[in-house]
């Protein structure tokens, strides 16, 4: 009964009512038919236009029905990938620009119910797409050669993909405007689809249906060895699981709302207004994401009030928890994979190692350890990058304090730094522990192999496996020692990036780049170029140039870049910089700009506090600014 009520709720959701009217209109159906059939025809004509290439890739003996089914699945994938973001990106920005978002807030509708209707209407979209493709599917039946079970389960996968894309688009619409959401979603889907079929050891990109769609054709056409590939069922379930997780995550993200907690309203009359806005054109005055209190309350107040007292802390904790969980899941996956492989390796060494390469597929002896190193680096790197971006968003501009317990309230900047440090320490410790565990296990296996060199067998041509393994062990143990210094370099660099982004936001760069997120995004490449790439580029250009003076300067300039630091640590630039204390200049320089960043931040925050917050309060209360600040702090704690 409750389920039926929920279903009724979805059907009566405003988004669904509106979408149903549009999607089932003659115009929309006609347009969809033209686009869909046009896309399929274009693909078919493209294939017919290059028969030799098609034959080369798809094999001559393949029946036309199989090609048609692949075309249909690809067509649905492409149409959904483009149409879904196009129709859903305006869910929050649309009402804001059209001027009825306040009514959405006042209606008391919960964010999830507001969005649910549009998510539900994605079913209609999928239904329309499938209906329009019926002639093509009928044609495929007559042509023969289609693996129907695979075709049908792939249709189901595309349905899940369609829902996932809708949920992700709706979630991203909280943060970006229509154009940016469109670009992020479509390019993201493209990149993830390519990554999902790439032969990489840790396949975490199975969040599109592409691997399952192309599985049959790829395995047959590229004549891959069966034992080197995962089964279709395994690929299918990974895709389904991956997409399911992303869908749930996106829905949770919508439910949480924008994680920009500490904002003071700066607006009136329907849009955010800043000093100097009146001189700008209207479209330059528009802020991209929900920022006014009236808009943010939609995500705060219009949902269940159970956690209301913890709302602020809860929202502060979510980015921290998500990043930590992501990192933990990534590192656990690597460890689990290693443990399985380790058992297999030990068994193979016990058997004489004859099937070493075949049983491990592409992860042969040579690349075995390197895969794990890369996996750990990617996980740690991604986690810290996400943490840096998440915590560089200025949530402290108004100087509002976050209550911690009954009597204390801390500035968001302090909390941000604490969270960021916590993330760095925890993922650093996790990755160090993992490297330690893997290197110890590998030492044990390769130690056993050295005892039985004959049984291990020459698997890599002239390079006997045990020797290669020992070399890798040497690299691995050396890496283990580097881990902490690596982490420290990365942490310092990301902290700096974060500090500069925050400073730029406080300077008012957000006004020009429209939003603080975008400001942070602009600061990251600027910092990467000026501090990471440019100094290294100078080293590379002038190291062989015959300008002694420049060469000497470039050598010194190179020390600024964390990349130079990494290269020194990994002994790629030993000749120029030597070993030992070669990293010392890097630490001096970065400590210096770190102090500068802190000084700038403090200066700017104090200025903002005195001129934007305390002055009006001081004028209103008649108290001196410092006493007004103390009164405000007490009120916030209350």
């Amino acid at each position, binding site marked *: 009964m409750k389920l039926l009520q929920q279903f009724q709720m979805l059907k009566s959701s405003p988004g669904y009512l509106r979408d149903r009217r549009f999607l089932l209109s003659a115009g929309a159906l006609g347009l969809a038919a033209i686009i869909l059939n046009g896309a399929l025809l274009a693909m078919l004509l493209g294939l017919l236009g290059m028969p030799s290439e098609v034959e080369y890739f798809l094999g001559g003996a393949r029946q036309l029905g199989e090609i048609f089914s692949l075309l249909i699945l690809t067509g649905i994938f492409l149409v959904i990938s483009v149409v879904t973001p196009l129709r859903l990106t305006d869910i929050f920005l649309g009402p804001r620009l059209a001027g009825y978002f306040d009514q959405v807030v006042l209606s008391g509708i919960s964010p999830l119910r507001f969005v649910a209707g549009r998510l539900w209407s994605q079913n209609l979209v999928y239904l329309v797409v499938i209906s329009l493709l019926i002639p093509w599917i009928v044609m495929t039946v007559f042509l023969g050669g289609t693996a129907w079970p695979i075709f049908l389960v792939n249709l189901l996968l595309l349905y899940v993909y369609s829902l996932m894309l809708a949920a992700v688009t709706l979630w991203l619409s909280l943060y970006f405007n229509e154009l940016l959401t469109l670009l992020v979603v479509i390019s993201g889907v493209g990149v993830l689809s390519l990554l999902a079929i790439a032969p990489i050891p840790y396949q975490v990109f199975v969040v599109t249906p592409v691997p399952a769609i192309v599985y049959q054709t790829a395995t047959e056409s590229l004549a891959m060895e069966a034992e080197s590939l995962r089964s279709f069922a395994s690929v299918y379930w990974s895709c389904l699981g991956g997409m399911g997780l992303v869908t749930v995550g996106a829905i949770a993200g919508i439910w949480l709302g924008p994680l920009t907690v500490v904002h003071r309203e*700066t607006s009136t009359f329907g849009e955010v207004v800043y000093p100097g806005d009146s001189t700008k054109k209207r479209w330059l005055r528009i802020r991209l994401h929900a920022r006014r209190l009236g808009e943010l309350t939609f995500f705060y107040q219009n949902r269940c009030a159970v956690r209301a007292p913890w709302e602020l802390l809860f929202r502060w904790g979510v980015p921290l928890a998500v990043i930590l969980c992501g990192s933990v899941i990534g590192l656990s996956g690597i460890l689990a994979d290693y443990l399985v492989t380790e058992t297999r390796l030990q068994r193979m060494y016990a058997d004489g190692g004859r099937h070493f390469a075949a049983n491990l597929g592409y992860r042969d002896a040579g690349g075995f350890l390197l895969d794990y190193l890369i996996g750990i680096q990617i996980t740690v790197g991604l986690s810290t990058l996400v943490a840096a971006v998440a915590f560089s968003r200025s949530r402290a501009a108004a100087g509002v304090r976050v209550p911690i317990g009954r009597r204390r309230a801390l500035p968001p900047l302090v909390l941000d730094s604490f969270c960021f440090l916590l993330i760095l320490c925890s993922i650093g410790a996790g990755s160090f522990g993992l490297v330690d565990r893997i290197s110890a296990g590998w030492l044990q296996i390769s130690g056993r192999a050295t005892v039985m060199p004959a049984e291990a067998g020459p698997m890599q041509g002239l390079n006997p496996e045990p020797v290669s393994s020992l070399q890798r062990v040497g690299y691995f143990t050396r890496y283990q020692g580097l881990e902490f210094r690596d982490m420290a370099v990365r942490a310092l660099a990301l902290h700096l990036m974060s500090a500069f982004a925050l400073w730029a936001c406080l300077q008012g760069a957000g006004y020009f780049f429209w939003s603080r997120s975008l400001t942070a995004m602009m600061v990251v490449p600027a910092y990467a170029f000026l501090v990471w790439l440019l100094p290294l580029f100078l080293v590379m250009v002038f190291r062989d140039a015959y300008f002694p003076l420049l060469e000497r300067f470039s050598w010194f300039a190179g020390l600024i870049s964390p990349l130079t630091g990494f290269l020194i640590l990994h002994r790629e630039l030993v000749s120029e910089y030597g070993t030992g204390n070669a990293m010392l200049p890097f630490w001096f320089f970065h400590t210096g700009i770190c102090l500068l960043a802190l000084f700038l931040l403090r200066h700017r925050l104090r200025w903002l506090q005195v001129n934007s917050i305390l002055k009006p309060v001081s004028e*209103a209360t008649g108290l001196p600014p410092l006493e007004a600040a103390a009164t405000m702090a007490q009120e916030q704690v209350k």
Partner: protein
Amino acid sequence: MAVTTIKISNLTRRFDQLVAVDDVSLQVAAGTTLGLIGPNGAGKTSLLRMLATLSMPDAGDVLIGGRSVLRDPRQVRRMLGFMPAEFGYPRGLTIHEYLEYFGSLYQVPTADLPQRIRDVKELTDLAARPDVAVRGLSTGNRQRLLLARTLLHDPDVLLLDEPASGLDPRARNELRAIIRTLATLGKTIIVSSHILPDLEDVSDSIAIMEAGKLVVHGDLQQLRQSGVEAGISVRIRVDSAVLQQAADLLRAIPGVHECRIHDQGLLVRSEDDGGNSLLEALIRERIQVQEFSREALNLEQIFMRSTAGRVT
């Protein structure tokens, strides 16, 4: 029957240096209509947005039906119907679809929605009009539709921000009739406008704002009788030969604030509640009084007397 009272206490709202609403306190009794008057920039919209929980006060609080807009905004929203000055609408909908969309947004039960839509269309005189696209509606019909939408969830309290803005005289007249009907249904209504005759007709009480401050607040009938200050306004007609003499005589009486010749008569503002001292003085000087009547001020006169043309 609604029993919702609005109580505003020391409400203040600042936008950086600008004080949009400055320490405003007033009360609106359940089932009555308050006309909120003020020039552009007086702070009317800021005040209404705070009442509607869309904007947070820097100081003070508002209790609507006993619930605070600060502590219990979600409950307050359920009692409110807010008609903003600007008409925002989702693209591509007809009148019926528009009402259906907002009915669903306000979570009107699906079974009740068609009847509710019929009712509000009837009330706002939209029922007889064809179900055309919202985009093509005239300003008058847009305001009707906006009001219909505001009434869809049957709120006890109505906040109407400049509802007559841009309407022709006939449409304004119709809108006044609708507001009067709503008042008879027991709704507590706050209507903001700077078109004074519109409010005069529908308001039980008025509040005049200027530069963020509340300068006048009270029962409309009382204010019309007494003006904004204590005392009375009277019109005195005497023989034209002694008009100037009478004016000089009255000006000399203590408590007379103003005495001017107007339309062959005298307009006098006096602190004397009954006007007896004026009449006595004229009789004592043997000036024949042809007419002595108490003058009721209209809203415009009250407004002009109470404001000085300041804006924030």
